[in-house]
């Protein structure tokens, strides 16, 4: 039997995203293995078991292997991997944190990532995000769980120039947020016309 076909919540937006001009680039990043990790205390043991120092500063993320480790709360992180399957990744992380009293849950399909790149994406985000995104305040390594438009998101700064962000959004809200972003970007994606 043929392999099962994978579909992404933002498949229907692919062409629209591809046509966007550089200053407001949007790319969907589906199918990323993601695990929600809960762990009461982090330290050398956890670092050794996981292979990454989980960030303890609120509102930050760090690179972790082929993915990232994002602070979600004082005992909660989001770990991603771009090389493992969700099942492999959950099993590995779970095995690492279980002896330390932690837990790990596969949430790969819970959210989808939207990569925003370009000189105007900060302006696009500012139309619906109350967080200060000035590069001095929200530089590379910053993250925030907040709302964008009317959707809850995890927002990651990937550069120090406020021109590269990753927005993680619940899959069921992905279509809404994609439409919302495209609408917000309209001012930068439309060739000015002065007709009636």
């Amino acid at each position: 039997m043929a392999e099962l076909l994978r579909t992404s919540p933002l498949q229907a937006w692919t062409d629209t995203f591809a046509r966007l001009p550089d200053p407001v680039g949007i790319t969907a990043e589906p199918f990323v293995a993601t695990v929600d990790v809960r762990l009461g205390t982090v330290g050398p043991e956890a670092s050794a078991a996981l292979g990454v120092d989980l960030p303890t500063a609120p509102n930050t993320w760090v690179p972790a292997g082929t993915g990232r480790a994002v602070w979600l709360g004082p005992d909660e992180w989001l770990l991603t991997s771009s090389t493992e399957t969700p099942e492999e990744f959950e099993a590995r992380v779970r095995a690492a944190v279980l002896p330390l009293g932690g837990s790990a849950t596969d949430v790969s399909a819970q959210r989808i990532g939207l990569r925003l790149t370009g000189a105007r994406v900060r302006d696009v985000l500012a139309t619906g995000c109350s967080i200060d995104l000035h590069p001095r305040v929200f530089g590379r390594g910053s993250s925030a769980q907040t709302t964008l438009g009317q959707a809850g998101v995890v927002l990651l700064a990937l550069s120090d120039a406020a021109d590269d962000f990753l927005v993680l959004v619940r899959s069921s809200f992905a279509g809404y947020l994609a439409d919302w972003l495209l609408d917000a970007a309209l001012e930068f994606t439309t060739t000015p016309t002065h007709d009636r």
Partner: protein
Amino acid sequence: MQLIACPWCGPREEVEFSYGGQAHVPYPDSPAELSDEEWAHYVFFRDNPKGRFAERWNHSAGCRRWFNAIRDTATYRFERVYRLDDPKPVTP
């Protein structure tokens, strides 16, 4: 739009938070041993002062952590926020 200082995430707009009523109202140790009136006080009765009030808040759109705050119910000003494992601050 007030800012509320989440003890973890720092100041965020109030719409990111949800209210949890009076703080320091623990679940009774042995509910079965309480009289109906005592139980009703736990379930239904809360203080309603004008002025300083210790309250529970949840950063529901952010880190989802509960915390406590001392807020003035007349001015809405948050005087301080503190974590659940911190003792209730002594206020003058």
